[in-house]
Each structure stands twice: as C-alpha cells, then as structure tokens.
C-alpha cells in the first residue's frame, strides 16, 4: 500500500515541478492530477481491471519523455501513407513539424498541434478539452489530461465534407524507454460535416515505457466521423488508452480499431448516444501472442430514444497471450426504440492462450431490441477438412481460415495503408502465414 502512495506523490511532484498548472488548462490539469491522486493506479481488486497485471507500472515512475527523440527509419517507414491527407506526427507525445504536413487542410478545416492551439487560445480547446473523457473515473485519462504537452486539435466547420482523411501518428523513439508519452486528440465535427480520422500508434522500443493516449470526439448534429485506430506500439509498451465520443441527433460515429502491438494494451472506449438518430458502428480486432495482453473495454450508453449501435470484436490469441473483451451496453429508462447489437468472437491458437469475454447488457427500457453474442472456439472442422481434402497443408489451411476470420473486421478499415499493415501483423502471427502472404 505504501509503495502505491509513494508513487502517486511522485507523479504529483513531477506535475508541480513542471509548472503545467498555469495557462488556459491550468485548472483542468490540476483537477486531473487530483483525480489521479485520488484514484491511483487501478488494482486487480477492481472489477473492470481484474485481469490487468499492472505491476511494472507501479514499480517505477515514468516521467514524461522530453522532446527531441529521433525515430528509427523502420518506424518512419510504417507511417500510414495516405495521398492528399493532412498528417500530424508526434514523437514521444511531442509535435514533430519535420514529419508532419498540414498544408493539405482544406477550407473550413483547422488542424493544429495542441501546443499551438493553446497559444492561440482557441475556443475548441477551451470548451471541450477534457470535457468528453471521464477524467474522474479513469486514472490514465487523468494522467494524460494532467501531462499531455501536445496533441492534435482538429476543428471541422459545418457542412464540410473531407475527401482525404486526417492522419495522426504517435510514434515512439528510443528516448521513451522508462518514460511516458501522453498523446492527445481533440476533434470537433461541425453540423453536417464528414471526416475520417486515422490514429496510428507506432514504436519499436523494447524497454518498458508507458503510452497513455486520450482521444476526444465531439460530434455535432448530422455529422459523420470515422476513426481508424491502429495500435502497434513497441514490445516494451504499456499502452493504456481512452477513446470517448458524444453522438448527438442523427450523427454517425464509426470506430475501426486494431490492437496488434505492445506488451500490454488496453483501450477504453466510451460512446454516449445522446439524441435520437445517433448511430454507432464499432468493430475491432485484437491479436496477441507470446506473453502479450490486449484488452478492450467498451461502454455504449443509449441515453435517449431511437439510437442504434452495432459492435463486432474479434480476437486471435496465440502463445501464452491473454485478451479481454468487456463490452457494456447500457440502455437508459427513456431510451425506447433502441437497437443494439454486440458480437465478440475469439479464436484460440494455443492451449496456453486465455480469452476472457464479458459482454454485458444493462437494460432499463422495455421497447428495445438488444442482443449480444460471444463465442470462443477453434476453426471449423468441416472447413478445415474441405481445404485439406483439396491438398492444402494443415498450416496453410489454418492460416487461410484464421485470416478469413479476421478479415471481416479488416475489410471495414477503409485506408489500405492501415489494413495492409494490420494484415501483415496478422500473417506474422500464423504458422502458415508466410505462404499465405505469397498468395496475396
């Protein structure tokens, strides 16, 4: 117990020493560090964190990484390359103008780094920063809010339909070892606007480090936001992220997420469907092998009537990997005519892999259509037999079917640059992946 208390104070000390308490966000940051001080790191005694072994995070203090980290060429080569896109690159949480390209921003779209936005005192940051994410209930969102030195601030004016996506890349340099990065995105989509956002986490750092990103999305009526989220941090990463969105009248939010990297990765997704016509589509793929851990906690709250949500999460677990899918659908008393669906399927490739699936329905309204399903299993015997009877070897057949299983989710990733990388990561996981790759 004492050790934990001591650690908490260490983060408080860093906060106070950094004098981040000033400026426009001073008070909010102060509240956030107070929240963290109160919450502490989650323990396994907490229901929502009972599978999370966070000991390495509590054993040492991770001060925020300094600017100036150099990316390895291997990491740079993995940048999602989308023609015509606005690109913001952050190294260890700090904006890198060298790698970024903001010139492609069309009229009505304002893209800046948080640092720049703070200097200009933009109303978006003043009104919405730390207003969507649950700072009081999520220790890592609180840490991020207290420490995020920089991030992407994207403001889309009413009725602007963007052709090319906004690409935000958070990459790690070797400087991040033993340190923490706090990537941040704040996006507002104006009325009737349409935007695609790519959030890519990249790294190749082997030593233990903390990446705690927060993404806040504010949608206005009848807007459409598609977030493509690809987590591929380095083998030493402890990635603890939060994605939060509020979806109002007739607005559409789609989240496509892939978790492929990190030693430990958890993303908490919270979406509030607050007005009639709000629509959520969410699908995810998580892949673990070795001793890695992946975790998605989703909370979808149907606050009012006539909103709908659809979720599909798939997991592929090899080695001694462990994965958690915990999805709550909450239908409030007044949320009549809610239509909500959730499906989680897991494929185990190894007897030592461990899958946890906890779909939850909390329903307080009677005129609703809600369903969830969850499966864990191995590949379909008949399909295997079919392939093998046609002369396809065991490994290849397994790879083919596993690939097909995952592809349902990857197909929804619109940017080829991202889905291609996700497919590569998938193939690397499969024993027969190499020959399948040759097929492509």
């Amino acid at each position, binding site marked *: 117990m004492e050790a934990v208390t001591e650690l908490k104070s260490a983060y408080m000390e860093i906060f106070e020493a950094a004098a981040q308490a000033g400026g426009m966000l001073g008070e909010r940051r102060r509240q956030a560090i107070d929240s963290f001080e109160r919450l502490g790191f989650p323990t396994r005694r907490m*229901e929502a964190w009972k599978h999370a072994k966070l000991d390495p995070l509590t054993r040492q203090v991770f001060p925020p990484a300094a600017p100036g980290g150099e990316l390895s060429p291997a990491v740079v080569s993995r940048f999602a390359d989308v023609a015509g896109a606005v690109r913001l690159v952050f190294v260890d949480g700090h904006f890198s103008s060298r790698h970024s390209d903001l010139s492609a921003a069309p009229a009505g779209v304002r893209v800046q780094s948080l640092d720049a936005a703070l200097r200009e005192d933009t109303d978006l940051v003043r009104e919405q920063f730390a207003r969507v994410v649950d700072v009081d209930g999520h220790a890592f969102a609180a840490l991020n809010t207290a420490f995020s030195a920089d991030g992407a601030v994207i403001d889309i004016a009413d009725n602007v339909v963007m052709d090319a996506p906004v690409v935000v890349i958070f990459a790690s340099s070797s400087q991040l070892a033993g340190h923490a990065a706090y990537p941040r995105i704040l996006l507002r989509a104006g009325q009737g606007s349409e935007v695609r956002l790519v959030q890519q986490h990249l790294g190749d750092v082997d030593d233990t480090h903390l990446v705690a990103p927060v993404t806040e999305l504010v949608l206005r009526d009848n807007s459409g936001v598609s977030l493509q989220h690809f987590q591929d941090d380095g083998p030493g990463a402890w990635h603890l992220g939060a994605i939060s969105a509020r979806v109002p009248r007739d607005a559409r939010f789609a989240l496509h997420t892939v978790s492929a990297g990190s030693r430990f990765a958890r993303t908490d997704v919270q979406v509030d469907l607050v007005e009639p016509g709000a629509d959520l589509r969410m699908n995810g793929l998580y892949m673990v092998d070795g001793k890695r851990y992946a975790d998605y906690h989703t909370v979808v709250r149907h606050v009012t009537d006539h909103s709908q949500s659809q979720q599909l999460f798939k997991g592929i677990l090899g080695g001694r990997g462990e994965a958690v899918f915990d999805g709550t659908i909450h239908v409030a*008393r007044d949320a*009549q005519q809610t239509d909500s669906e959730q499906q989680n399927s*897991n494929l*185990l*490739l*190894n*007897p*030592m*892999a*461990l*899958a*946890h*699936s*906890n*779909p*939850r*329905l*909390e*329903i*307080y*309204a*009677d*005129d*609703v*259509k*809600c*369903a*969830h*399903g*969850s*499966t*864990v*299993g*191995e590949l379909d015997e008949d399909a295997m037999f079919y392939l093998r009877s046609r002369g396809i070897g065991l490994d290849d057949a397994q790879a083919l079917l596993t690939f097909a299983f995952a592809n349902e989710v990857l197909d929804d990733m619109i940017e080829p640059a991202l889905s291609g990388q996700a497919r590569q990561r998938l193939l690397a996981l499969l024993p027969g992946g190499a020959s399948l790759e040759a097929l492509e």
Partner: protein
Amino acid sequence: MSASSKTIEEITGKRGYEYGFVTDIEQEWAPPGLNEDTVRFISAKKDEPEWLLEWRLEALRGFMEMEHPNWAHVKYPPIDFQAISYYAAPKNQPKSLDEVDPKLLETYEKLGIPMHEQEVLAGVDTSDRKPEVAVDAVFDSVSVGTTYKDKLAEQGIIFCSMSEAVKEHPELVKQYLGTVVPRKDNYFAALNSAVFSDGSFVFIPKGVKCPMELSTYFRINAGHTGQFERTLIIAEEGASVSYLEGCTAPMRDENQLHAAVVELVALDDADIKYSTVQNWYPGDENGVGGIFNFVTKRGLCAGKRSRIAWTQVETGSAITWKYPSCVLKGDDSVGEFYSVAVTRGYQQADTGTKMIHMGKNTRSTIIAKGISAGHGEQSYRGLVRVAPTAKDARNYSQCDSMLIGDQCAAHTFPYIDAQHPGAQIEHEATTSRISEDQLFYCKQRGIGEEEAVSLIVNGFCRDVFKKLPMEFAVEAQKLLEVTLEDSVG
C-alpha cells in the same frame, strides 16, 4: 389504448401471496446475535460431535474477517446480523411422523405438501392420485418429518434431515461436508457454515436408481429469524436421483434472511437432477418486507460421465442472489442449468450459474429466461470457465429477457474465460417484450388478452419448464400465471 400499455398499467395491481399465513405454534429460540455462543448453542441443541462444532467455529471466524460482498446488481439496506435469531424450532420435537404436531401437518396440508404416507402405505388405491414423492419438511430451523424413509432404506438410500445424518451417518457427513462449497467459500456460505441448522441429506448408493422423487419443503414461520439450511446430496457410481425443493414464508414487513448452502456430489456415471421452485415471500407491492434469498448451490461432477442438472423457477423473494453451479471435473461429465426467474413489484434478482470445465469432453448447457415486470430488476450473471485441461469442452448459453412495463430492468453479465483451443463456447442473449403483433395475432383468434399474455410468457419459458419433473412443471406454470396475474392484464 394499446394492449400492452393496458398491461403496463395493470402491472402495479396487487397480487395475492397465498402462502403468507403464520402458523401459531409454540417455538423455542436462540437469543438474537451472532457470536461463538450462538454457534455453541445451535451445536448443543443438535447434540453435535466436537469436530462439527470446531468446523462451525472456524467458519464463523472466517465470516467475521470477510467483508459484505457488493458486486451483485442489487440494492438493499445493510443487514444487521446481530439482530437475527439463528435458531427457531417448534417446541415439541416429534419422534416419528405420527407424533408431528397436527398444526404443522395442517400447515403443510395448506401448502399442498403431502405428509401422509400412511394412506399410501396401507394400500389405498393411489392410481388416481399424485405419484409418490418422499418429503423432508423443514420448518424454520428444524426438520419436522421425513416421509417414505423406510421404504427408501430398503434400497440403501438415505434420505433424512442433516441433523439426523450427523448422528446416524457421521462418517459420510464428515467425508463430504464442505468439499464442494468450502466453509469460507464466500460471505454467505461462511455464515451458513457457522450457523446452519437443518436441511436434507441424501445418499444414493452405488448403482441405485432412486425409485421416487425426493423433495424438501422449506418453510420459514417465525419472525426475526432466518433460515440457514444445508443440503448435501451424494450419488455414488451409477446412482441417479431427482430432487425437488420448494419454499414459502409468511408475509411480514421485515426482511428475513435465507442463506442456504447446497452441495451435490456425483461420482462416476451418477446423475443428479435438482429442481427448485422458489416462492419465498417477495414483499408487498411497495417493496416492504420479503425474503433475502442469498444462496450458494454447487454441484461437483467428480466422476466420469456424471451429470448434474439444475432447474430453477424463481418467482419469490425480495432479493435473490443465487448461482447454482457445476464443477465438471470428471471426463465426459455434463452440467446443465435451466432457469426461469420472475421479478415484479420491487423484487430484485441477480442469478445465474457457473460452469467450470476441467475434465475432457465436458459439456454444459445454460438456458436462462428472465421476466421482469413492475419495478422488478433482474440480472443474469454467469461464468463459463474452460481450464487448459478441458480438451474439447463445449458450452452453449442462451439468456433471454422479457420486459413487461417501462419501469423494470433486465441485465445480462456473462463471463467467459476460455483457455483451451478445442473449446467451443457460444453465448447468446436477447432482450425483448411481448410484441403488439403477437398479442394482436392471439386476440384476433379469439384468445383474450390475459390468456394471450400467459400463452406467450409460457411459450417463452417452455425450454425450461419441459426440464422440470411433471409435477413441478404444472405447479411452475400455475405459479407463473398467479405471479403475473393482475400484472399482465
């Protein structure tokens, strides 16, 4: 006005709880309070051996160190464990059925429980009567009588009260007590282990198929008390038994605690079917009074090809907190759970099951149907765990909820922890209400609204009802009708 909105309006109507009477009988009590003296008092009353007293005291020490669990999706005021009397029994303890206080027999008569075996044994033609059912009747803290004991004994079957088993078959009790639900398994199991009073003990020897249904009827009568019964059923190799359990309590403004523990052990090829119709007093229409039903039930499929099936119809209790579970240890063993739970008025239920797959080729099925009406709040909570040793384990779970009215709630919290690639686990859950279309269809064919609702609800529960023994299935269906009467038009 639409059919269902009428239904909703009527849902708050009063329902008669027909078992709410109190039997006026002289009783003796343990002074309220929970401490070592209480445990010693109970143990002395029951004339128990030293090892059992020690066992109880250890459980009490465990209980004192535990914290009240708060993870269940139910709300209730803190329970004052010191205000409860942990032992209440009719003063005149009968030696045989003939000596049972007529008032008690009358009570069971009123409840529809057959306590007259004489007639049947004397050769009266019973072909037009209900089939034979052996009954162990538990009244507050003690068993007041067990029927058909002798007939069962001819085949080596032991069916008696727990207190009697402790005296007559201490070696069996010692061997099995607490092996499935350890003393300190959880908060309420620890409490039960410390103060358990009576319950049934069933032992089916090797190769014996129990010739009749065994049944226990639990009745809480006294006020300011709780019932803490403990049931232990052992089926040896190749044995099989079907066991029924029913329960009622008087209507009172206070909340009474019922914290039972049931342990089942099935050895190789044994088959245990355990059915419950739980109809404890649910409290009045404002949610005052009613039983807190905090029960730990667990079966161990210890042997190969053994099978344990839980079937429950939960209509009573103010709060139900109950997860009849199966530990599938033996290879090829089977666990089943069929449940219908109804919450109405201000009832709350957090119920479900756990299926722990350890052996190879183990299979489990979970069918849970929840009906929530009025201000009822209901949760299905289940765990399916597949250990790395459970090669080719299979599980199928289906949880359906039906909501009647817009003030009720239904939740589903399944947990799946799978660790063997050969495991196949499927879970499905849906939530719905009685649709206008269904009602319209029935009504235009001349079926009245009340009947139509009853038809639809019964259809919704059919998968579970057909798993109940015949006798019980009829009772359960009636109970459901009575329970939802007034509430669904």
